[in-house]
């Protein structure tokens, strides 16, 4: 097992470097000259010769004439040291700028995932137990609808129903501007503003997850041990929740672990549509403002998250179920 983990981590690092190079290469394809951009404000104060001299100096210090691989080396060294460059829009180090949206995203996603799990697991189990009943069939159809409809349509629909017609929740934003009150009131205010995005995130993930839980549970219910348990005369409740659910948990838990990593990534669509200051919206804003240092940093962050997520998912197969040998 230890050997396998080390192998996986080495492989992960390899992938990380390959991906970072690819991304760095992509960002270097953008037309633009950072040295000229930096000198632009001084252009009128300098004579042309002086300007040309300063410009060439700057190009040298910034290393713009070096071959791509040298520049990549410099950049990756800085990145690994934690220096991701400056944000052009915010005029601050990227690390500082990213902190707030990351906090917001984690805050939103923890609630969303808890809600989604709280609904899908009981629903999936119930559907599996009452397989082919009217209820199950209805849920099956609804889940197909659920995972077929893109999130932005769900958002539009929810805004229309809950914010425009019923006016229960605000249309967008994270909190009331200039809110004054106790921390607890502030928390409640935040929840009030986040209610609609939370609902959308939950509904959006219901479809796929319910189907997954249901399939796992049906698989588990058809096992021989269930027949044995029933033959022993155990109560149906015990059979379902103690015998079957434990077996169904194996595939489900690996999915959940992978899912937990998405706590950090944030939904691009939902955050943008509700104007929540989270990672997803931050990323889109950085892309459309051409703040490429920020976009590159977030992209690298996403890749790291995905890689770690994959590793944990793979390892968890073995951890959850001792019968599975991961180091094939």
């Amino acid at each position, binding site marked *: 097992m230890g050997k396998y983990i080390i192998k996986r981590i080495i*492989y992960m690092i390899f*992938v990380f470097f*390959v*991906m970072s190079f690819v*991304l760095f290469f*992509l*960002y270097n*394809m*953008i*037309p633009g000259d950072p040295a000229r951009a930096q000198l632009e404000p001084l252009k009128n104060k300098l004579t042309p010769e002086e300007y040309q001299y300063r410009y060439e100096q700057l190009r040298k210090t910034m290393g713009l004439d070096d071959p791509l691989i040298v520049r990549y080396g410099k950049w990756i060294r800085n990145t690994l040291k934690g220096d991701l460059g400056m944000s052009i829009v915010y005029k601050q180090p990227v690390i500082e700028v990213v902190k707030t949206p990351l906090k917001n995203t984690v805050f939103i996603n923890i609630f969303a995932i808890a809600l989604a799990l709280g609904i899908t697991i009981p629903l999936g189990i119930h559907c599996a137990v009452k397989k082919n009943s009217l209820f199950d069939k209805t849920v099956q*159809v609804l889940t*197909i*609808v659920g*995972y*077929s*409809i*893109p*999130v*932005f*349509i769900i*958002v*539009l*629909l929810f*805004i*229309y129903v809950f*914010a*425009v017609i019923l006016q229960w929740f605000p*249309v967008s934003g994270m909190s009331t501007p200039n809110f004054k009150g106790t921390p607890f009131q502030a928390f409640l205010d935040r929840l009030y503003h986040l209610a609609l995005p939370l609902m959308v995130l939950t509904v959006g993930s219901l479809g796929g997850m319910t189907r997954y839980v249901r*399939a796992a549970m*049906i*698989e588990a219910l058809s096992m021989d041990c269930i027949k044995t348990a029933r033959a022993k005369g155990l109560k149906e409740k015990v059979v379902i929740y103690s015998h079957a659910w434990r077996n169904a948990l194996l595939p489900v838990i690996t999915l959940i672990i992978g899912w937990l990593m998405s706590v950090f*990534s944030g939904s*691009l*669509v939902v955050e*943008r*549509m509700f104007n929540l200051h989270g990672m997803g919206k931050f*990323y*889109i804003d950085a*892309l*459309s403002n051409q703040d490429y240092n920020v*976009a590159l940093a*977030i*992209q690298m962050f*996403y*890749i790291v*998250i*995905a*890689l770690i997520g*994959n590793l944990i998912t793979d390892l968890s197969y073995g951890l959850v179920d001792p019968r599975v040998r991961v180091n094939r």
Partner: protein
Amino acid sequence: MNANKNSNNKKPSFLYLLFTKLFGGKKQLSLLEEEQMESPFRIVINNFKDNKVAMTGLIVFILIFIFVMVGPYFFPIDLSFAETSQQNVPPGFDLMKVPKELQGKIQQISIGPTFSVGISTDGKIYVWGKTKVTKAIDVKNMPKNMGKIVKVAAGYDHILAMNDKGQLFAWGSNRNGQANIPPEVAKLDNIVDIKAGYQCSMVLTADGYTYFFGNSMNNDYNPNHKYQGQIAQIELTSDAVVGLTFDGQVVYLGYQQNSYSNIPENMGKVVDIATTASTIAAVNEEGRVFVWGNVTKGEGDVPHTESKIVDIQGGRYHYSAITEDGKVVAWGANYYKQASVPKKLQQLEVTKLFTGYYQNYAVTKDGKLITWGLKGYPLGTDDLGRDILTRLVHGGFMTMTVGAIAVIISTIIGVIIGSISGYFGGRTDMILQRVTEMISSLPFLPFVMILSALIGNSMDTNQKIMLIMVILGLLSWPGLSRLVRAQVLSVREQEYVTAARAMGVKQINIVFKHILPNVISVILVSATLDFATCMLIEATLSFLGFGVPAPYPTWGNMLYGSNNSTVIQNYWWRWVFPSIILGICVICINVIGDGLRDAIDPRTQER
């Protein structure tokens, strides 16, 4: 089989068959008959046919498919089209629905962008069409107790009316003071004509004086023009004023020197003038028509008429005219059929003709009303005045094309990589698996966005569409390749493969000619489901503004810009229709995919 044939000699109708196939009523076969079912392919089809949900999905999808494939031929699209006067028009066909009470006694009709106002011979006023100009302003809300109305004029977003005592009334939008009757106009008692234009109103008195109120920045009008006291008729383009003097001379009433003021010489005595949004037309005593201004949409192509033209009317970009013997001709822009005079009008004698924007109303000698032009929009218009149905059809075509090509690319890559890596195993497998994992560990949406933003910013629209297809195809194959690899692994040790190998068939032929046909069903299901996914991703990307760029419609980018409460609340048709059709289409494809999987592998159905 024979007995079965005999019992069916009465041929059931197509509809009966459709419904029995769809909603059950299938004849139970005996065991022997069931044995006679031939190929596994046949079984798959029959299984699929029995799945009612999947069949419904298939039929609905085929209908949508036909709709978007055939539709573009019926609804041609002009990508650069934009029409400010038709912005955000709700769905409906009532733009020319003249109220019953008015028919048969029409005194005058005046036409606005999406509404028309008419007065009857007994002085009653009626407004029809899409009368809600903005969220708050509805031109239907007219002042009360106006008395007997004798003249009416519809502007861009307001209406002007005058009663038999010479009193003026104005209502509708008043942002630029176009419905604010100034005191010196209110005390006039010899008004003969009123005109309402784009954010402005004009009044003409019997002694030839003109008065103007409203937005004087947009409309070029000089209140102290040298023809005060000589004007017999006035007309408004969307930004200028022209007049006709008592002695039949056309004059420009503004300050500027422009294409309007460049009035043709030697027109003779002009009897009538008319304007479109950007051109002016004059007809002289001999019936000759002169058109000048910014002629861009064929306003100057006056058709030949048998008798001379006596009366001319201007729409938004077209003209219509009555000849001496009561025949009607029309020319100019024709994209709403506003310049296509109905055939039945050729036999009738027209006495009154009212044209404005995209509508035409002709009253015949016996009082019959005939209309032609823009009736309305089946699904409304968007923020640039484009018809949503047209965009929906073309958008569907684009969305499906992008989805289909992306799926074809990803399926080809997935199948090749999956089967090679499954069949050959060893080091090849190792390397290909690592590549697959690398691609599948990419956060999909952010990465596609970055590619489209970075590579795409130096591309034109067509290249960008290609780029989206290729990116989607290049990044979405890992799932399929894993599936194919697993299938090939399970098949490759079977006897027929060993036999092929023993016979010395080339390895590459074994993979693609012997093994692949046996796993085609898995590929088919996966490709179907991937098609739905690709359509969704394209829609999401376009919605976020990183997909197919603006003038080309797709179902996703039609929703771009509808993400604010104003649009969601007031212009529901702009987001409801694209959402519905996209949703239904993806649901159908997913249902078909699920049905196919169940049909191919009946074991999964037990789940």
